[in-house]
């Protein structure tokens, strides 16, 4: 029986790693979870949690799979990066931090043409990691056969990102309240786990109390939340492409990299008309959405998690022995050790 450690550093990891856990179990293997202190414990009763290095060593995972930017290098097993989003270039930089190499990973499981060629080039020049175009595990859960529940009124998801300067979260409460009162739409508001400003949270909680058609939830449950809505209102977040995968339109406020697959507006006043347009699902917009999602996610067969597990086996059998040594990274390793020790207190 093969053992895999699922490494979660934020709550978003659950929706990414659970399809993988399902595939691991389907194969008769075993998965266990490692939750960082920054990650709430949302484990189900049948999910196993490991809580210290000794338990991890005893579990002897074949691979440690993480959707975050880092993993403890002293954990045993092949380190696998499955990403927590698509390369969205949300900040206006020459190089997307999606492609920053930190020296932790043996395998990068890329999602499609938007990421694979860049990682392949990096792998050729660095030589200490391998790249497999497996597709994103989270997308496996998008292929649910059950039809969505019927809604009497359109429901809009507002899910802002956390980065200051990009996020619309601070200027939206008034607009949201106006739209909630004047338009025949229901709203679900979810926050990025890194939005922790208590004042802001209170403001949205109060808004939800005042407007019965607004529901506020700290946690976005991924596809479960997406399936309750007809449209996403956002700013610049990797969530956009995930949402587009469901074939539903997205309206953005000052997106840093707008494209024809989005209805992007510059002021909060334009949001209402843009939502009305998008809810009609214009043909051209829907075609652009299809084109854009295929650029990010190459596989649509629901087998991405299976491909990740196959990639791990292939890496160990055929590539691991030929890899160059990973960067020494002493400073970062020391930081990781400190982080681990802190989290154990």
């Amino acid at each position, binding site marked *: *029986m*093969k*053992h895999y450690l699922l490494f979660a550093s934020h709550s978003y990891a659950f929706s990414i790693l659970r399809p993988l856990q399902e595939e691991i179990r389907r194969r008769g293997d075993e998965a266990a979870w490692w939750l960082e202190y920054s990650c709430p414990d949302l484990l189900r009763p049948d999910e196993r949690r490991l809580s210290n290095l000794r338990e991890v060593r005893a579990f*002897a995972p*074949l691979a440690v799979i993480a959707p975050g930017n880092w993993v403890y290098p002293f954990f*045993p097993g092949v380190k696998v990066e499955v990403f927590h989003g698509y390369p969205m270039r949300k900040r206006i930089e020459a190089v997307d931090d999606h492609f920053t190499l930190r020296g932790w990973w043996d395998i990068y499981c890329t999602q499609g043409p938007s990421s694979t060629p860049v990682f392949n080039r990096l792998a050729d020049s660095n030589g200490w990691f391998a790249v497999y175009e497996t597709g994103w595990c989270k997308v496996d859960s998008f292929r649910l056969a059950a039809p969505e529940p019927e809604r009497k009124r359109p429901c809009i998801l507002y899910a802002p990102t956390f980065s200051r300067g990009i996020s619309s979260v601070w200027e939206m409460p008034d607009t949201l309240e106006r739209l909630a009162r004047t338009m025949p739409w229901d709203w679900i508001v979810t926050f990025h786990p890194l939005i922790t400003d208590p004042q802001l949270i209170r403001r949205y909680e109060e808004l939800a109390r005042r407007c019965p058609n607004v529901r506020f939830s700290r946690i976005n449950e991924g596809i479960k939340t997406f399936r309750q809505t007809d449209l996403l209102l956002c700013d610049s977040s990797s969530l956009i492409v995930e949402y587009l995968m469901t074939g539903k339109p997205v309206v953005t406020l000052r997106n840093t990299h707008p494209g024809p697959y989005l209805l992007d507006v510059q002021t909060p006043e334009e949001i209402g008309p843009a939502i009305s347009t998008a809810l009609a699902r214009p043909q051209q917009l829907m075609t652009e959405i299809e084109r854009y999602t295929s650029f990010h996610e190459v596989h649509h067969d629901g087998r991405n998690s299976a491909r990740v597990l196959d990639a*791990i*086996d292939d890496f*160990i*059998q*055929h590539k*691991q*022995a*030929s890899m160059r*040594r990973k960067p020494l990274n002493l400073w970062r390793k020391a930081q990781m050790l400190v982080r681990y020790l802190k989290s154990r207190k």
Partner: protein
Amino acid sequence: MTELVNPEYVHLAPLLRNPERLVAAGRLIHSGRNRLYAFTTGDGTALCIKQYRVPNLLNRLVYRYLRPPKGLRAWRNSDALRRAGFLSPENVAYIQEDSPLGIGRNWYISRWQDGATIYRWGALPLRTLAPQLDALAHCAARMHEAGLLLTDFTPGNILLTTGGFCFVDTNRMHRGRIDIACGLRSMRGLWLQPEAAERLALAYAEARGAHDPQQWAARFLCWRKRFWQRRIHRKHLPLEIVHTDIDGTQYRFNLQTTIQ
């Protein structure tokens, strides 16, 4: 400790991670510079464990920081051969002791491969060997065309199995473009009488599409003669060398005609 366990054998991982136990319980089948053991697990998986000698201090550092150690190269090369469609025992595990002062002991564990070495060819006449020589020449030609050159192409490292030739002890291998001369030179150490060696070279040159196979065969005989002359001189070998196989069978190779 560096560990590499084939995911197909992960159920044996607790055992494989403790090679000292395997070696202690295994059967020693060869003891020289390195040691070779056979071991059968509880579920009937037959394993071959090669324990490499701890290198000198300089090489310990070299293998730790600059160059992959032999066991790791054996894994890599065996995998490359299998992926190219040649027979080589399946990799099971590689375990290496590490310290800042370099590598320590290391073990390469593969599936046990039944089969006979080709030492016996040294005493067999061409008429008995011809089809097998042609088969080996074709196999080597394909391997070299695939860019893989086993530099330890010796009778003990080629097993005759029911599926064809199986290559073991693969830690010495060169990858890249292999020309005919290079390919033929790698086969100088085979135990063959001159007419059998000529046949092997002819078949190899033809398989590689050479215009003048006869000339390549003549060159091969010449290289081979020099190779064995030097070997006899350097290692003070007698004119009849003897090898005792792991099953106790003795094979003899008379070098008289080869070096004449």
